[in-house]
């Protein structure tokens, strides 16, 4: 039951994030939406893990390992994107002076 709820919440997050990434024009907004979208995917993965639990386990460990790796990758991607946005903003300041 709770797995279904989390799966649906994950789907909702994916929807919000995807919408923001596709229609957004501001880089920072799109980066935040990318993170929402990523969180939604991880939540779906978590629901999958819960449903796949068997043989005495509360949950299937493979999706959990995938989520951990995915979190690290998403974090690295976010820092890279923010670094680019900062560089662009810095250039703008230089242009003005």
């Amino acid at each position, binding site marked *: 039951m709770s797995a279904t709820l989390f799966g649906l919440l994950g789907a909702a997050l*994916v929807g919000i994030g995807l919408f923001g*990434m*596709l229609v957004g024009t501001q*880089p920072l907004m*799109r980066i935040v939406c*990318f993170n929402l*979208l*990523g969180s*939604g*995917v991880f939540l*779906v*993965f978590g629901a*999958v893990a819960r*449903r*796949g639990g068997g043989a005495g386990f509360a949950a*299937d460990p*493979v*999706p959990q390992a*995938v989520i951990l*790796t*995915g979190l690290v*990758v*998403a974090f*690295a*991607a976010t820092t*890279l*994107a923010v670094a*680019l*946005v900062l*560089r*662009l903003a810095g*250039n703008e300041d230089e242009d003005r002076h």
Partner: protein
Amino acid sequence: MPPLAATGSGLLPMLAVVLPVLAMVVALPLGARGAERMTIALLLPGFLLALGTAIAVQSSGAPAIHLLGHWSPPLGLAFRADGLAAAMLLAAAIVIAAVALFARGGFGVRSGAPETRTAFAFWPLLLALWGGINLAVVANDLFTLYVALELLTFAAMPLVCLEGKRETIEAALRYLMFALLGSVLYLLGVALIYGSAGTLDITLLSGRLGLEAPVIVAAALMTAGLLAKTALLPLHLWLPSAHAGAPAAASAVLSALVVKGSFVILVRLWFGVLAATPSLPAMQILAGLGAAAILLGSAAALAQPRLKLLVAYSTVAQIGYLFLMFPLVAGMPDSETAAKAWTGGSVQAISHAFAKAAMFLAVGLMAARVGHDRIADLAGTARHMPVPLLTFGLAGLTLMGVPPSGGFAAKWLLLSAAIEAGQWWWALVVLGGGLLTGGYVYRVLSVSLTSSGALAPPAPQPPGTPDAIALGLAVLSVALGFVPLASFGLVQVGRMGLAP
């Protein structure tokens, strides 16, 4: 399919992945000069590993398989180098070696000179990119492929904005946004597939997935994500500015290799994971997008005022050819026609890698010496820089598909497979694309071969090593056409999706 068993030669592709990644980590504290030496030292071992893999796969007629930590799937992860992977490993090793030797001119650190930031960034990124592409072609597990995709993106994106100019940073940001959207969609598809099959190993998944709702959604999500990374029209918008803005050596690897990584994963998805799922309508859509990319990309290349943008749009068009193989292979599986189309697609990927790397390097040399890359003002370049122009022309022959080049072999195979499969409309696209390609190559050559009127002649320079390297790649792309087609049997080894 039964689970994989490790083969003795499986160590070779595993080392081909591990060595560049390890070298990248070691290179970081060594500084620019150390990283450069490290890269140069790794070129030969990397090439030999790829060659060894190809020989082992060819002679045994079976894929080289390595089980990481001796755990067999579904518990562990497997590396599986089939013929396509071996051929791509070899192409990657050659292109990386050529680009690394070429880049010593621009990013090399002279003894005594201070190290530059761009050189310090370039060499580890090149190593990371090499490791990423090798991983993308040999991994046999959907999640490892996701990691390979991200490794490729994170190595390729900084290469785009290496020079730090505002427009290149904007191009890099646009590229990153497309790539991130692509990989997160791919990951969502992976979650759905894991939910319905309980494993991510491609060999185990093969033939297990039917036409169920989660599988269809997953296939659509993963395909869309991979298309964004491969830059197939209409998701190509990031490519021209990113590839044209990067330094020549970086553009060469980006256009030659990075987009091929996600293409190989797409091939694994449709002919491996979804082998038993009826998919011909989806394949026709993919090839339709490919055909649109060929025609519109070539037409856009014809209209470009700048040389680097022309070459970048030509990449958009040439990627389209890769997708023509999908309906031809799926239309009549297990037939001679499918084998032809498969070989055609693989040869197109490899000959385009050589030709486009050569073209970007040649264009970079021309732009550096003339000081601009406006096509209209290139008059007289034939006299001052005959070798880069010859390189451009030879690479153009391959892209057009003029016999006896590698591109001709690829396009001929696709064309005859299209006619044999009764899907003649793709043959028309191949022919039309060749004509348009001829048009934009001719545009550059015709201006360059006229004598310079207004152009202030730059000091005539003797052709140096970089010229020779670019020319070598172009010659290689043409020479692929002389290889007897039977020996392309390598790419057939371990082809997935065949009836057992």
